[in-house]
């Protein structure tokens, strides 16, 4: 173990490979920072360059993009209030308010630190427990995954910020959106004879549309209201290192818990990052002694979100390396890189190419270190985004969103999706409907439908959901989660009432 790791480290530590990791990380950060350009896009652009490289160089470059990309979502989330990827939605919850309160440097710094620790912890999990987790994840059959998704959907209650009924309606609308297009047996549904609707709505344009539009239009409205006022908040763009260290010191448990959730849930093929991220934010809120402060700009929320979504980087490698099953699109491309070099990912890799496996571990670790260094250098520039006047920023961000939506599938229709859902999102936001549940529905809908039907195809007996231990556990958790959310909501409201009575 240690022997091959050292050999791999020697290979990855060579200047040229280190250079490639730096390029990859920078590329990933930039890709992840642009709303709508995700880690997938960054990987796609870099992918053809790996053709001419030896395996270790190619893989290291890709891993660099990976680590950078998963941490890049912090920037648009904190600075613009627009989640760049589905798994950084909860980063916006506390990151954006903190930046608005005049501390963008602190919010970005906490995010980067949490990302770094999340990546490290997930690599440790991958190295020491990878095969173990992989064999355990084989217990997640259609029944278990269905129950897990049902559990994730119940988190809507906690994420609806008080508007429970509207939140549930939004989640239902999200699920409905995913039924457009060909179903699993090539039957066409709700296409209104528009050929473009055949492939349904891509998650990314829908998400960016809904969040970016409501956010940017909201900013425009504020601009109108504040035209005559001087800038309200004195923005401090410096990075307050001492404060960040103090913040992180108080988040030890939260960091570890969120990273573990990210590594474990991220290791389930096909369920992946977004679910891990929501579960982790929700857990942080439930375990917190002051849940009412979540969503107003506290470090706990940023840490929970960023530690978990970066931990997915290591987690996603578990099924890819141990079983040869890629869990998501970036991983599928990663596998493509390996296959391209004649290496088949899977259990044999550890025997046939231990050096390469070691190189992946080493690049993940080195990538994490480089990510922190790059981010800290870039953060001072990123924080300056808050100084750009809104009337310049908004059109630029919208244009980037449109480019990102198009580049996803080189499909013009996706830009229309972005705009249509942008208008829908803006109207919903005006009606004070929470938008996160809607996206949760969109992200999970497809998979829920597929897994549920497959479970019933394999065994037409509904009782299987309750007789299989893991699936029963998740369904029980789902019920508990709903009850707890109701209780916590009730408690928060009572303290509000009490506070009001005391004031009177």
């Amino acid at each position, binding site marked *: 173990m240690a022997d091959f790791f050292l050999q791999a480290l020697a290979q990855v530590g060579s200047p040229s490979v280190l250079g490639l990791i730096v390029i990859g990380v920078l590329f990933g950060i930039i890709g992840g920072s642009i709303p709508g350009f995700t880690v997938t896009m960054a990987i*796609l652009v870099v992918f053809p360059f790996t053709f001419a490289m030896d395996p270790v160089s190619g893989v290291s470059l890709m891993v660099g993009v990976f680590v950078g990309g998963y941490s890049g979502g912090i920037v648009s989330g904190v600075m613009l209030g627009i989640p760049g990827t589905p798994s950084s939605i909860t980063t916006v919850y506390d990151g954006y308010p903190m930046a608005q309160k005049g501390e963008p440097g602190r919010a970005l710094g906490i995010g980067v630190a949490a990302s770094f620790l999340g990546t490290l912890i997930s690599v440790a999990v991958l190295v020491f427990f990878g095969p173990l987790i992989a064999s355990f994840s*084989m217990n997640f059959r259609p029944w278990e995954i269905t129950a897990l998704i049902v559990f994730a959907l119940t988190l809507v209650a906690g994420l609806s910020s008080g508007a429970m009924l509207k939140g549930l309606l939004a989640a239902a609308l999200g699920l409905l959106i995913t039924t457009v297009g060909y179903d699993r047996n090539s039957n066409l549904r709700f296409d209104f004879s528009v050929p473009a609707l*055949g*492939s349904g709505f891509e998650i990314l344009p829908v998400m960016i549309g809904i969040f970016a539009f409501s956010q940017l239009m909201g900013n425009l409205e504020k601009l109108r209201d504040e035209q005559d006022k001087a800038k309200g908040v004195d923005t401090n763009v410096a990075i307050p290192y001492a404060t960040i260290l103090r913040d992180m010191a108080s988040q030890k448990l939260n960091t570890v818990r969120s990273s573990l959730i990210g590594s474990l849930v991220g290791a389930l093929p096909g369920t992946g990052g977004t679910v891990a991220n929501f579960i982790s934010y929700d857990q942080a809120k439930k375990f917190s002694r002051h849940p009412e402060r979540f969503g107003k700009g506290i470090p706990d929320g940023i840490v929970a979100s960023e530690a978990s979504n970066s931990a997915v980087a290591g987690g996603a490698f578990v099924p890819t390396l141990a079983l040869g099953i890629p869990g998501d699109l970036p991983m*599928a491309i990663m596998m*493509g890189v390996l296959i*391209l070099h004649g290496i088949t990912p899977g259990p*044999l890799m550890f025997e046939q190419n231990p050096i390469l496996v070691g190189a992946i571990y080493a690049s993940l670790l080195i990538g994490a270190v480089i990510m922190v260094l790059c981010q800290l250098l870039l953060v001072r520039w990123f924080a300056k985004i808050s100084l750009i006047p809104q009337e310049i920023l908004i059109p630029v961000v919208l244009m980037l969103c449109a480019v990102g939506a198009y580049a996803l599938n*080189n*499909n013009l229709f996706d830009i229309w999706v972005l705009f249509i859902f942008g208008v829908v999102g803006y109207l919903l936001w005006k009606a004070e409907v929470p938008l996160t549940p809607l996206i949760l529905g969109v992200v999970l809908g497809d998979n829920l439908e597929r897994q549920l039907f497959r479970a019933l195809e394999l065994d037409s007996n509904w009782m299987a959901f309750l007789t299989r231990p893991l699936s029963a556990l998740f369904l029980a958790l789902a019920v508990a989660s709903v009850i707890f959310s109701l209780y916590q909501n009730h408690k928060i409201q009572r303290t509000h009432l009490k506070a009001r009575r005391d004031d009177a």
Partner: protein
Amino acid sequence: MTRSTLTMATAVAAIGLASSIACSQPAQADYPEQDIRLIIPFGPGGATDIIFRLISQQAEQHLGQTIVPVNMAGAGATLGSRNVKEARPDGYTLLGSHDSIALSQLAGMVDYSYDAFEPVALLTQTINIPAAHSDHPVQSADEIADYVRENPGQVRFSMIPSSTDHFFWVQFFDAAGIDMADVRLVGYPDTGEQVSALMAQEIDFAMFNLPSGGAFFENGTFRPLGVAHEERIDGLPDVPTLREQDIELDHSTSRGIFAPKGTPQEYLDTLADAYGQALENEALQSRIENEFGSVVRFLAGEEYLEFLDENESALSAAAENIDFQN
């Protein structure tokens, strides 16, 4: 200059947006004069994507222009094919696809098939291999029929609905004398999920090929039950063909290049020449054979048309036994 510094230099040069300077012989009729877009209607990183990228990289050098692969996944590979079908027939938009062009029509997803395109050339064929978990009582393809007879309505075959493996099983049932009513076909979205389903033994049989199943055959997780090809393949010398087991079926995924209807013949010839010369590269050949368990099979012009006609009639015959609207 060591190999890794060379790599570094390549990467830096590439990221610096250097254009590829290829040594080429002058092409006729001034075609091609600009980059050629090759639309791949599947996601990046899969076997189809990589095979087309690899061969196109070689073909560029004979064309003197860059071939830019563009992934356009969605709607069961019809998003990309429709895009090419409606593109200008000027030779600068091509489609790199396989049997799914005909399958989409047979499954009723679209109303066009091979005939909506100008076929340029067949490039490779990937041989399909039915497989089971190594703990499964069935050890070869000729035992499947008996196993189904002993457990009617219990045996589960995995497939991607209206994809190559769906058709493979229907043709296999026909060749092996199995009644469609006695088996259960379970749908999966992609090969990766079928691998994990077979590992968990929630299905009995799946169709793989060397790129998707090779590692699992090698470490003994799965057992290849037969090879759907005229002769045994190098990667699995001990596995008999289906014909050796008295099942008359050859089945492969045939990947080729198509152009929009009405593309001038001389452009098609230029492209076919370039791809033909690319496939003569021995390094490329051995990669296609060893890493992708595929065989290089180059057919252009009339020969390719004939091939596609035969391919389509075999698939249409199979489609008659499939109920796509379940």
